[in-house]
């Protein structure tokens, strides 16, 4: 069982307290963080992912748990192919070379984009790009997945497809999603509203 324990987590940018003494524990299953812009949702994910380190308080993860964080930006190389992007991710994770082809294909098929292997990333649609980002994360076999606005800029069909894929692939993992949108999953999820740097 994976978990994220936050204890008195506080983070300020200058005078502004973005995260204000948050104490909370996230468990396996899907948790969606809602809230207006600027309330600290993404900052919280950044802090959990280790991008921000100048916070006070504690963030406790199980040492064995692998964490994967999908930022809102398209963080892959647009003018490389899907296969080349997956190769880079695979090498970055220092996985054994001999299993690469098999594992990459398997992961891409989990997200339904195995047919796009030789397509350049810049030719992919918004939904396909989102799937590629998540497929790259899935290569690391994470126990905790942080997703920042996974449905942003997607049309309704793509939102539904993306959420279905997320649920299928990571249903038994700790999944923490930040979203402006109302997200519909087939299984019950935890929804938390964030306001003024605090979890409500």
């Amino acid at each position, binding site marked *: 069982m994976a978990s994220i324990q936050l204890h008195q987590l506080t983070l300020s940018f200058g005078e502004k307290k973005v995260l204000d003494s948050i104490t909370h524990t996230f468990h396996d299953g899907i948790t969606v963080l809602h809230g207006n812009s600027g309330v600290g949702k993404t900052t919280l994910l*950044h802090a959990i992912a280790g991008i921000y380190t100048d916070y006070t308080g504690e963030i406790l993860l199980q040492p064995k748990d692998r964490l994967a964080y999908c930022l809102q930006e398209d*963080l892959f*190389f647009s003018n490389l192919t899907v296969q080349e992007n997956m190769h880079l*991710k695979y090498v*970055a994770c220092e996985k054994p070379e001999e299993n690469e082809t098999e594992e990459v294909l398997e992961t891409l098929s989990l997200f339904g984009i195995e047919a796009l292997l030789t397509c350049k990333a810049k030719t992919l649609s918004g939904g396909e790009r989102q799937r590629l980002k998540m497929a790259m994360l899935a290569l690391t076999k994470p126990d905790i997945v942080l997703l920042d606005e996974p449905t942003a800029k997607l049309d309704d069909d793509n939102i539904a497809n993306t959420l279905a894929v997320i649920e299928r692939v990571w249903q038994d993992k700790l999944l923490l999603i930040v979203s402006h949108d109302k997200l519909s999953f087939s299984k019950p999820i935890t929804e938390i509203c964030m306001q003024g740097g605090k979890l409500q």
Partner: protein
Amino acid sequence: MKKRSNDGSCAKLLLKKSSGHLKISLAIFLASITITGIIGLLYARQYFQYEKDFLENVAMRTITVERYFGNQSVRSVSFTDVSELTRILDKEFPSTKTTVIPVYRPNTGFTVDESPINLFAVERSHSFLVDLDDMLDNTAYSISQQPKTIGLEISVITEITDNGFVSGVLERVILNTELGASRNTPILSTQNFFPSMLEYPTFFVNMDTFHEIASIFLNREIVSMQDATDSGLISLQGIFVYVDDLRLVSAVASFLMEQDYSAAAPADAFDNFGETLSVAFMVFLLSSICLICMTTVNIILSFRSFYRVQQKDMGVLRYMGFGNKRIYKMYRKNLGIKFLQIMGVSALLIFMAGMILFSFGHWFVLAAFILSLAAFLCLLFIAISRFIIYSYVRQELLVLIRESKEFE
């Protein structure tokens, strides 16, 4: 090892993300360093030509002495002037090596195949005066192509009268010939040697060979060259004063004129040439430094802007899971490949230019230019990788991914 080779494949993928802007900058850089190198070679060639024509040219260090103006009369220099000149020069210039070289010629025409020739005698130790390393016995050194051997026809003097001389039999002396004596020797620039005389074959022999020829010519054993010149049938073509230190040639010539000797020093005519060349060299040096500086600044700025717009790429790599060191090594490797390509092409072009300019000579200059180029590129490579790539790579992930757009 596996990880390393995999990182290499990632570096290759990054290299595939080529940049038109950087390619243009690299092409300009390549052109600049190649042009600088070729201009440098041109100047080096000019310097070598200057060295050959002036610094190493015996004629530039040689003062021709043909007349003596003392005692209110004018006379040609004679055998006794050789020792007198040696004495006064040793006294006046004790720390400078000056060599007084007499050159002799027969006053009457010797022939080869009944055609007139010019014949001069030079001490073997003074072969350098005709641009030769050595002058062997029984060998006539020519300034133009001649048969392998010549039969020197000598009219043997049977009687010397008040009106001249009577010659009897014609004796032939067989001499080997060697091409290689210099047409620019000061011997052929004396007042009593007219350019039209170059129409006839011109030979130089060493003094021992000339002794034998003179003995046959005078029909008696000659004791010394003074003995030969006293006959009036052998004379001094001139006395040549060789000054080891080029800077003192003018001073020695002035001194000789003060001593009532005629003294012609070709170096006087080129007083400003060395200065002109020095100025030209300084201009080259300064312009090369400026060109290299501008090129270097240009390429550094190009790489700086190239890597600045690549910050997002670095951020993507970091986000994917590559550590700072691995990203730095990938970019450094790609930079190294670019620099190797530049060095290869530039070195090849400079080498080809060098082959044309130096005609396979002065290899060390060519090697020095190429090694300098390699050293310069190495320094630039280290500077760019250490101070530009590293400074970008080590930035925070969010700074990297938000400071720029992905580079395409």
